[in-house]
């Protein structure tokens, strides 16, 4: 019987072609959107972790409350000792300290007068220590548009938009104006060693990167930093482990009332990150639901039209002694078969497009110009194993649902009128 049904589905184009096209399109879009959302989210999460959040992050309690202001006067003091302790107690992590700061930079003209001036966000990271992974974490070698990575004190990297805005080239000097940890005004000269483009408008708009030792000197933050970040050595975030480590760390300071006591939070606990982690799954679920619903309606109607076209066939089958239940089951079976074929075709095409999107990406920098979100300017897809099966959910489900709804008509068929109906 199964072979008989296969032959019918394959030979009867009206029964298979339209549903296969509809299912293929739905499955294809599901796969592409799933891969694309997944790619953007993974890249966004990685960027956020690498640039801002780490997998776990330590600030003073006071700093954590005002973190968006980057208040270096509330920074952690004694970071070298604390970092050393963390490295000993949690060797599965790479522990680094950084300072984020707000400042003003001033570019002089040939006679020393201000040529250009603007606010910047500063990242002070460990660029000079041997064994430091910070340059790799910021992907600086890839991000370099011109110049080189700072190799000695008083060298800085400048973000591309800022460099273009002020027409700055590597080798030019600027003065950084800021406030020290004690609240006094400080300034220090730097030279631009290179121009970088990270691909995120939030960073490229106006950032400088300097070595942590330069920042400690310039901002008078000896043995201090605004944050200590921990990164899993595996590179992959594990919420359970991160939670355990944070709980264990915070336990030590639980009884302290000191607002400068350090406090560890996980990546997911940081503002907006839990939403970002969940959004990928939610978006995929929403797309699947939308496609299941839309395709079911189309396939239901296609099924109804098919039932009208196959009115005589079902009548003959009833007359020949096939039960209504059996006919209904065969309609569902045909639905599963067509759904599987359509999904396989749609998934293959979807994976192909996803691969192209993964390799080439889509430039969304125009949309991200004023965004404060740390997202990649080129949105790339990411093909994961789930992309192979995700299309089957809307593909097969919608076809079965459409067939099941359309097939209900068979139960309304009265055998008593078969002769009359079949005499047309």
């Amino acid at each position: 019987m199964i072979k008989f049904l296969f032959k019918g589905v394959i030979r009867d184009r009206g029964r298979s072609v339209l549903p296969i096209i509809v299912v293929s399109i739905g499955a294809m879009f599901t796969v592409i959107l799933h891969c694309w959302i997944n790619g953007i989210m993974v890249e966004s999460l990685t960027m956020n972790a690498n640039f801002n959040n780490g997998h776990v992050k330590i600030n003073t309690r006071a700093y954590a409350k005002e973190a968006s202001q980057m208040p270096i006067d509330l920074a952690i003091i004694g970071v070298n000792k604390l970092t050393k302790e963390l490295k000993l107690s949690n060797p599965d992590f790479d522990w680094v300290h950084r300072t984020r700061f707000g400042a003003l930079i001033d570019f002089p003209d040939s006679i020393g007068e201000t040529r250009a001036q603007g606010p910047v966000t500063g990242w002070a990271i460990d660029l000079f220590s041997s064994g430091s992974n910070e340059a790799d974490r910021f992907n600086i070698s890839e991000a370099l548009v011109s110049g080189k990575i700072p190799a000695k004190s008083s060298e800085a990297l400048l973000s591309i938009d800022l460099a273009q805005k002020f027409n700055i080239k590597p080798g030019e000097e600027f003065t950084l104006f800021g406030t020290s940890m004690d609240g006094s005004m400080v300034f220090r000269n730097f030279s631009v060693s290179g121009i970088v483009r990270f691909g995120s408008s939030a960073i490229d708009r106006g950032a400088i990167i300097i070595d942590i030792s330069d920042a400690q000197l310039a901002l008078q933050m000896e043995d201090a930093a605004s944050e200590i970040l921990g990164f899993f050595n595996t590179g992959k975030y594990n919420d359970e482990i991160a939670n355990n480590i944070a709980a264990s760390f915070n336990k030590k300071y639980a009884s302290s009332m000191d607002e400068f006591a350090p406090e560890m939070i996980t990546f997911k606990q940081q503002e907006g990150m839990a939403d970002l982690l969940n959004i990928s799954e939610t978006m995929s679920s929403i797309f699947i639901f939308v496609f299941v619903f839309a395709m079911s309606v189309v396939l239901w109607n296609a099924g109804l039209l098919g039932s009208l076209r196959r009115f005589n066939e079902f009548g003959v089958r009833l007359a020949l002694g096939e039960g209504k239940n059996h006919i209904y089951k065969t309609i569902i079976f045909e639905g599963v078969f067509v759904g599987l074929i359509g999904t396989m075709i749609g998934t293959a095409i979807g994976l192909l497009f996803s691969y192209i999107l993964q390799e080439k990406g889509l430039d969304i920098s125009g949309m991200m110009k004023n965004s404060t979100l740390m997202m990649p300017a080129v949105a790339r897809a990411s093909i994961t194993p789930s992309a192979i099966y995700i299309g089957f959910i809307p593909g097969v489900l919608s076809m079965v649902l459409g067939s099941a709804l359309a097939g209900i008509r068979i139960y309304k068929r009265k055998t008593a009128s078969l002769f009359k109906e079949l005499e047309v």
Partner: protein
Amino acid sequence: MENRSLISISNLSKRFKVGNGEFLALKNINLSIAEGEFTGLVGPSGSGKTTLLNIIGSLDIPSDGTAEVLGKSISTLSHKQAAMLRNLNIGFIFQTYNLLPVYTVFENVEFALLLQKKTFAERKIAVMEALDWVGLTDKVKSKPSQLSGGECQRVAIARAMVKRPQIVLADEPSANLDAKNSHHIVQTMKRLNKELKTTFIFATHDEKVMQYLDRIISLKDGEIEKDEFVNHAKNE
């Protein structure tokens, strides 16, 4: 030896709702049809031929009275039991053939046996035998669209006969055929009736079919007007 009765109908009436009222399609029908009969229900349109055929074929149930087919009371059968009765014991031939267009001649005839879960070897033997009865063994791979009307009806006869049913019900089987083909297909059925002892019941008002019938049951306004056995000596 007298043939056993396959169909026994007593005091059968069938009413249909029409608007707020009722239409009496069959009135107090009493009838017995024995094994091997070649019987026709004849009469003008609306006389109740097809309604009676429906009830005998377990496609409908009587409003009053009883209809026993192969010892089973049609009124008491569930949908499943009625389907089973049709599947195993009753063949149908329609006016417009109603072959499944996407399947070959072989597959159309094979379908009834698929429902009976016969093996491919059993099906192949039975299908080729049935196609041999109707002279279409050379058309096994043809699609219905490649056949003439007469050939399509012969495939329909093979489909009805392939499961060796005890009863075949044919509703105006010659209505769409020319005279030559009409004679041909009725002669084929007559031959099968004689060779296999299959009971054929026709609903017809075609003179060409009537001349082959052994028994003519005339219906008028839902009642049996005349029930007579025909002497074919003059035809032979």
